[in-house]
């Protein structure tokens, strides 16, 4: 019975397979060569920069959206108003 659950656990952490984790840690240690905080800071920045990037692009596009008039009632024609 225990082995059944062990298999499931192993799948549950499929990306976190111990061998793979060990390998990833070694590679990252080789790349950064410093303490874990540096890696945490860099990866945390990467993670949180994704939503920031989406918002920045959306705001940068605000001008373009503003000059496009909404669709007509029948949705067949669109005119640009300056």
């Amino acid at each position, binding site marked *: 019975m225990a082995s*059944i659950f062990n298999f499931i656990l192993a799948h549950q*952490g499929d990306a976190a397979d111990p061998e793979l984790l060990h390998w990833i840690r070694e590679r990252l240690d080789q790349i950064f060569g410093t303490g874990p905080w540096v890696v945490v800071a860099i990866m945390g920045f990467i*993670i949180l920069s994704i939503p920031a990037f989406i918002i920045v692009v959306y705001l940068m596009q605000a001008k373009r959206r503003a000059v496009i008039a909404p669709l007509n009632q029948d949705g067949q024609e669109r005119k640009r108003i300056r």
Partner: protein
Amino acid sequence: MLTTEKPKEPIYYGWYVCAAALFIGFVAVGARNCFGVFVVPMSDEFGWNRFTISVAAALGVMVNGLSQPFFGQIFDRTGGRKLILISIVVLGSATAMLALTFHILFLAFMFGLVVSMAQSGSGPSNTAALMARWFKRRRATAISINSSAVSMGGMIMVPFSMFLLQATNWRVAWLVLGIIVLSSLPIAYLFIRERPEDRGLYPDGDLAPLDDPGSATRRGPSGPLEVDTWKQSFRTAPIWQMAGSYFVCGTTTFVMSVHFIPFAIEERGISGATAATIFGYMMFVNIFGALGAGVLSDKLGGTKNWLAFAYAMRGIGYAVLLTVDSILGLWIFASIAGFSWVATPVLTSSLTADVYGTKALGTISGITFMFHQFGGFGSVLLAGLLFDITGSYTLPFALVGALLLPASISAFSIKERKYSSRYQTRVPTPAAGD
């Protein structure tokens, strides 16, 4: 003043929805995949053995698979925005609360039940259904971008939590992961909208739905099997053809997630680090496989052919794995199977939307996902059992690999041209007086 000068078109709003869904999937799936990182430190602190903590994980897998159709139905009935927002709040809060774990029952309840159910609400199955509403011509591409979040989550969030754990302790690490999940809430609130009509748009950002008879692009009328409820889809063949092949998809991917590295070490005689490198490479390649499948399906059409091709390629990968008795066989398998790994969910979701429409898509996708999970669950147990009996992975890998042939045939036999909205032509409405 009116002008005819061609304006610079803004980015279609659907791409923001896609990007937001990508980030939600990235943090939601990523945080869940991190569970393996916490097994050792939590077990050490509480004196749990591997079996005890596995119960929480096992419960999580089952709850996630079984609850998906129900959350799919809620998604279909409510539109999805509220469900996704609430799921993120629950998922983030529950993940953060894992920092308070004091007993195995708390872990089983919080992770196995609450986190797993919340993940069903905001998971890739529902966000893929959302993509299907926002895109028609570029449906598979949008779903493939959405699906790549699963791979990205594993690739970035898991090492992140690993180093966070090293720098702090498991309680702080769970808390930070919960906060990261909650950080997707503003982006979800700002950009997740249920359908393009909510913003006065048409799918893909088209000016209007166009007729394009006979074209391999998805425009115009709906298919003959478009359903209002999931029950109607059960009376038709494509759902069973797709669910059957999706069952095999789960069977052939789960078994490798668990048993590939032990197989490579014990039966091919390579080191654990090399085995992990090959597996990591396979997970990396699957991002390109998913994106490639989406783009090819949208550009060239014939989604079911690409789906059949993906299963056939994976079958060839299995054959190589079992017949090439060296490290070369492992690399070839990783290259071939890696490309098909996430390509099949992308193509299945896209084809499901094309055949059955989007009204009950959340539920239908949830049901096919459940088949996928059942297949995976069974294959992992079967492989373990047969390994214990025979002392080798050859028989279980051969058995699950052989299933890829009928899966490929099942996908190929779907009458896509007959049923998919992509190939339907609009019957002209007679003019008044005709």
